[in-house]
């Protein structure tokens, strides 16, 4: 049973942007989803946890390891897939994974071979192991990235936007993999795709502007909103008026017309109908507090 504890973690960039603003979370084994719009500070948090960035204040511990002060110790138990995973030119999938396995301390050749073979098989790239990765499609590359993150026996796996570029079946396979792994270790999955979190995570946090604006189980969040979300199809030119009168959570186009969700403690009438809230409503309601059209 591993436990990741983050307390009072803050980081301000030289240009004044607060990337992390007093973050406090505790994460246990299992899949943990980190939701947030672009620029919310997700990647900053992930990099900090992956020992790739310093924090100004605060601390982060994985079990007994002080991440900020013992980066070498953490790296020994870390699997990391960054948002943009690139590869060396002219290096094959097998070579790269072998290299990564060596870096992660698997010194026995036979073990390394077995590990690389197993992972390549798992990400369905065994047939292409002798090909240069540079020529792979985005999805295939991403699968190599996933494989390398799983090498060794990581206790903490951090994956940043892992499903970008994957087609639905690949995505599915990937989630199954993660779910399997996640039973025994801490997996942090950062994404802006709400569905990913809903499908996979038992716990989640929503970040915005460097702060954690929500943490808890997705289901709890949805239940909290229950009965408070209403929707209506409106005319495009009336949008501004609705924005003034209601707290719009989201608007999207349905059949060429805007469909708006609004948050309201009671039924606003005016043609609005109540809907069962979903995680997306939770997400938007948490990050869209200033009531502007998004």
């Amino acid at each position, binding site marked *: 049973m591993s436990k990741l504890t983050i307390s009072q973690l803050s980081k301000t960039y030289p240009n004044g942007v607060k990337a992390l603003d007093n973050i406090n979370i505790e994460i246990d084994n299992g899949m943990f989803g980190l939701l947030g719009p672009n620029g919310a500070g997700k990647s900053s948090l992930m*990099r900090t946890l*992956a*020992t*790739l*960035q310093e924090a100004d204040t605060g601390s982060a511990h994985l079990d007994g390891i002080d991440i900020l002060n013992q*980066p*070498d110790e953490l*790296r*020994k138990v*870390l699997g*990391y*897939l*960054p948002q*943009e*995973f*690139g*590869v*060396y*030119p*002219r*290096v094959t999938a097998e*070579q790269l994974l*072998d*290299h*990564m396995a*060596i*870096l*992660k*301390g*698997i*010194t*026995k050749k036979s*073990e*390394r071979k*077995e*590990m690389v073979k*197993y*992972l390549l*098989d*798992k990400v*369905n790239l065994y047939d292409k192991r002798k090909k240069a990765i540079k020529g792979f*499609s985005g999805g295939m590359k991403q699968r190599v*990235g996933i494989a*390398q993150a*799983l090498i*060794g*026996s990581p206790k903490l796996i951090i994956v940043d936007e892992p499903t970008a570029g994957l087609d639905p079946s690949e995505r599915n*396979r990937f989630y*199954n*993999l993660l779910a*399997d*792994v996640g039973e025994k270790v801490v997996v942090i999955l950062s994404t802006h795709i709400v569905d990913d979190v809903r499908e996979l995570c038992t716990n989640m946090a929503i970040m915005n502007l460097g702060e954690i604006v929500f943490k808890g189980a997705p289901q709890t969040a949805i239940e909290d909103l229950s009965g408070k979300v209403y929707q209506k199809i409106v005319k495009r030119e009336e949008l501004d008026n609705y924005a003034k009168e209601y707290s719009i959570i989201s608007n999207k186009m349905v059949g060429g017309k805007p469909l708006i969700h609004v948050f309201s403690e009671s039924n606003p009438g005016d043609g609005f109908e109540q809907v069962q809230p979903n995680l997306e409503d939770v997400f938007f309601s948490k990050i869209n507090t200033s009531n502007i059209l998004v």
Partner: protein
Amino acid sequence: MFKHFFTTELKYTFKQPMIYIFTLLLGLLVFFAVVSDNVTIGGSVGNVFRNAPHIIAVYTGVMTIFGLIIATAFFNNAALRDHQNQFNEILFSTPIKKSGYFFGRFFGALILATIPLLGVFLGILIGSALAPAFGWIEADRFGEFYLSSFVNNYFLMILPNMFFAGAIIFAFANIWKNTVISFVGALAVIVAYIISGTLMSDIENESMAALLDSFGIRTYSFMSKYYTPVEKNTLGLQITPILIYNRLIWFGLGLIILLSSYFSFSFKQKNKKVKAEKNEKAVSRTPFILPKVSINFSSATSWRQFRSFFYINFLSIIKSTTFKILIIFSLLMFISNLAGGFEYFGLQSYPVTYKMLDIISNVSGLFTIIIVVFFSGELIWRDKDNNINEVIDATPHQSFISLIAKVTSLVAVTIVLYAFFVLSAVIYQLGTGYTRIELGLYFSDFFVSYLGYYIIYSMVLVLIHAMVSNKYIGYFISIALIFALDILLLIADIQSNMISLGATPRIIYSDMNSFGPALVSSIWFNFYWISFSLICLFLATMMWKRGTQANFKEKLQLMRKGMPKSFKISFFFVIVIWLGLSSFVFYNTQLLNEYDTSDERELLSVEYEKTFKKYENVDLPKVAAIDYFIDIFPYKRDAIVKAEVTLINSNETAIDSLHFDCNSSWDTEITITGAELVFEDEDFDYRIYKLAKPFMPGDTIQATINTSYITKGFENQVSNTSIVENGTFLNNFQVLPSLGYNENVEISDNNTRKKYDLPEKERMPALEENCGPACDKNYLTGGLSDFIDVETVISTASDQIAIAPGALIKEWEEDGRKYFHYKVDHPSMNFYSFISARFEVAREKWNGVDIEIYYDEKHNVNIPKMTDAVKKSLSYYTENFGPYYHKQCRIIEFPRYSTFAQAFPGTMPYSESFGFIINLEDESENNVIDAVIAHEIAHQYWAHQVIGAEMQGSTMFSEGFSEYSSLMTMKNASNDPMKMREFTKYDHSRYLRGRSNEIEKEMPLYKVENQGYIHYGKGSVILFALQDYIGEENVNKAMRGFLEEYRYKGPPYPTSLDFLTFLEPQVPDSMKYLIDDWFKEITLYDNRMMDATYKKVEEGIYEVNLKIESKKIKADSLGNETFVPINDWIDIGLFVDADESELLFQRRVKIDQENMEFTFVVDTIPAKAAIDPRHLLIDRVFKDNIKSVKEELAQ
């Protein structure tokens, strides 16, 4: 549309700092070259103005090569900016016109590329304004400013060069869309330039090379080859046919490239090949259970990680296109070096391994540095550029491991490159039939000369990239470090190898003496620098930021963060080692073996002159005889000398004190009975001994001089290559102190003298007719001795032979050392060499003379040719000039620390680097061995039997006569007039080139002031022509008469005027003008064949008609030329063949008008017609003397 893209290109670039930096950079380089003697661009300025049009042309030419690298940036940007910003798809979908876009960008970049080169002009203008104002350089070193030279250089050099190179780079960029390949395009242009340069090393290909040089630099040097100083000061780059042809060729080629790249350019992206992915088999859902592995982190893990990093890095370099292209280029360079290889008189050396090492060093230097600079940045930034840095950085490896793996892979790549060169060299050696392959030598040369340097630079460049936060800044600093550091040290006059990054003393490999005395020092310096660079690597590790980027300040903060204990201990350990090595190296190179920098040496010369000039005219005795006892310890590099010197007072007054100027690197002890040391200068070791009783005229005194040279530790640069393990070569001036004030120490350059307020100095005392006391000194011993007796007992190591002048009287062994006793057969000049090495000896006897060749066992090929050359020369000279007075004639090989042959009485040391290894298997080629040996043996007459007074003109009858004698020996042997033309061609060229590089003033032959191009070049050409005009026997008769009059006679010594009195009676009246024209004045000819036709009269009778133009030119000492009316005898002739190998017809005609026509009848159709067909006269351009003969068309 064109205008829009053109102007936006300019506007965009002018907003970026790059263009200003580059302009400043080139401007500064030129500025320093103008205001400082320490910085030179394309050779030294010489005696022309520092801002002369010629200098501007040279600077511009050289700078366009640098400018090319800059231009690459502009052209590449212009082609790829939209592509790199991924703006292309947006832009190209708008309705813009292809031509406007393409040419707008191209010409915008073209103009931009020429702008940094304007820095050259700025540097010159500002330099010539500031230098006189601040007193850096005297005002009279600057001449008038010619606007035309800027305009010409811009439109004839800069613009066309940038156009051609730009067209290639732009095309490359548009096709491959890859910055690296664009740079490769630029490199291709430079390589082409270098290849055309190696062609030019032989005189035959000069005009071809002038056309083939895309930069026009060699075109200009071809054009200006015969420029006089005046022309250099006023003309510079002019519009000439060859320049126009060159420019048209390259402009045309550039245009073709530009247009074809325009037509192949399309806005549409190339269809990317999309391979349909195979349907992947569905994987059954099985539980995910990672295989069990044992994970451990120990030093073995680090070692395994290092290997993996190394392998990945190494592979990425070896497999990269850039590396492959660099390999191909370096191979091309290598081949072109081989093709042009070792030219000397049109001959090639055998490809001995050290020659191959020299070529490898020429070629690999540039390429390896490019590779180390480029890939050090590449390796550091590769992870980031490929977006894999975060993954790698988050793995549990130590940064030090990853960095040292980068360094190691860089070094490994240099090894691969070197191995590749060795392979090519060995293939070449075997291919030419040369089988003495020395693989071990290739191998050890790598360790000695390269490995350390590459390790050092790899580590330091890694540190640079680790410090900066941008790859290009890293590159900029790396390049600046490599180039600017040396320039700064030069300006600061710092010569210590401890300061100049990676510097070690220069090693010259010699077949005789292997790596020589620099080896030990070089190894210590390598250790010193490697430990220094290890410190850099540790610092780089401390600054190495994993994960997100950091700026320099953050990296410095990072350094304060704790590192593991083992790291700290190793770092401390390395620092201690470095400090230890520093002190040891410092002790040896700065304290134990002090040295003077070039500026210090200059100041010392000034001080010497100012302090001791007052003793210049004190009465000195002469050396009458010397007995030497010399012990050479070659393996310790020590020499201990004892000399019993007999001095005689040949003055008319008594001498009260003796002055000695001792060599301060030798320990000298002088003992004279009844003399007391009254003055000794610490710095210069100038000593004055007061005699107890006056040294009366005609009396003699014995002086015992003990001197020793003891090698201590190692030096910053090897200062003494005369005493070495195998091939010690000393002369008497090095061994013994000189008597009195030594004028040779004085600075001879008048510009430098002016700087130190020293009076102007004449190169040579003026020629005097009927000279009095001035003729009492000869120019070799300066009045300090005449013809003297010398005896030597010399000892050396038991496996060596030691040679001193004269006959070997006795030879014995004692205490494990070998002793030799030599005695000179006939009193000779006080000018000897003492030599010791492990020699093989070839002996032969010729008319009572022992011919002995002392050579290294590896160099035995040409020995029979050498003995033959000795015999040929001796027989011509004894027959034509008189007896040879020594009983032996020795040729002795010495290591290639110098490349010359020199004549001492009866002994002629000859450098291993020429002659011994020249390939003479093809008998039809010029025989340089004959030439050099004949020259040196001629010195046994001209210099050793008769020597001139110390005044103008004397070297005419030592060097000039020897070179003439050598030509005559060969003429006698070959008996082929056209072959002689091949030989004298090099003498003609030597003279004409020499006079255009003259830094003071050209003298007529009879007043030559020890100017090589005059006494060797012009002297031999004129005497050779003279014997053709008045007859060989007549010239030799004059020389013989002169020799007989002065042979082995003490003062007064003869002058060139004395020789002319012997020559004049031999010259018929009709030819008397030649003495004035050729000896007493500077005369040049400009002969041309204007038109040559024949018509058939009947079978076997052809009438040939030649129209010639002939001008005669007189030059003054500054090169000002005036045409004078011609009234001369000149040959006209016809060649049987187009190769000009056989003359069909020749007639000497009187030319008394500039344009004349001659008609005569021959029996076969000639191929070519010529005026002066055998090239006897000094003609500024000889090529136009010859024309193919055409059939005259019927009227």
